């Protein structure tokens, strides 16, 4: 380690989710949204331009969005939707949780009930690291 303050939180990650069966391992972490008293699984996807919110969470969070939509190309097709800003918590098992806000793409026709954590407006503003051998996800403020 370069220092004790590189990150402030650590949690285990999993290599698959109950929602999506994929041929290769991915990184799934626990997150919470706004004031929902529940934890959700989200895929860490540094290659995605934007985070995408699971379809059921749009309703649970009571999100309303206006303005003009745009089309986002994803590996699950091209979807028309909006960008919204919502509070999200990176859940720690050790250290401290990180409460932040982030920009998420929401779309009425998003086919998955799975959230993706993408680069712009979220991961590009925090510090994070992975230890794949130990399944550790480290995170903190940059």
């Amino acid at each position, binding site marked *: 380690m370069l220092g004790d303050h590189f990150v402030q939180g650590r949690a285990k990650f999993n290599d698959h989710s*109950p929602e999506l069966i994929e041929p290769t391992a991915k990184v799934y972490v626990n997150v919470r949204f706004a004031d929902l008293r*529940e*934890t959700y699984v989200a895929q860490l996807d540094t290659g995605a331009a934007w985070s995408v919110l699971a379809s*059921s969470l749009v309703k649970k969070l009571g999100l309303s969005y206006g303005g003009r939509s745009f089309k986002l*190309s994803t590996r699950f097709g091209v979807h028309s939707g909006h960008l*919204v800003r919502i509070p999200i918590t990176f859940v720690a098992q050790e250290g401290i949780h990180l*409460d932040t806000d982030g920009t998420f793409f929401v779309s009425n026709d998003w086919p998955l009930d799975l959230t993706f954590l993408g680069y712009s407006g979220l991961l*590009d503003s925090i510090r994070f690291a992975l230890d794949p051998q130990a399944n550790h996800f480290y995170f903190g403020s940059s």
Partner: protein
Amino acid sequence: MPHAARITQTDAPPTYEDRIRERLERDDVKGARRILAEALQEGSTELGLAHWAEVLAPAKILGFRPADGTDIRDDIRWFDEHGRDYRGQWVAVLRGALLAHADSYEALRARLDEIAPTEYPLVHHVK
């Protein structure tokens, strides 16, 4: 009587919002942010720019709280082993054990409110 000349929509210069959306559709986030900065610097009063300024801004750190998370692998293992028995159900799992399940999210939420767990369960809709 001569007709007034009609200016077609395509003759109008693209708005800042048009340009931002066009960049976003090309995954050019930096380009979208650059156009937004240009619009704000020039004092544009174009409607919708406040929204783009909010969603294109970097994330803000809101705070920190002591860790109370559990091991995600225990909970996902439960879904791997038992999920097929709860197809179509909303399920809450905590520390690798079933906490509650229901036909709808609202019913599950009501059940969780009754149980009032001291920790936050993992919630998932089993397909």
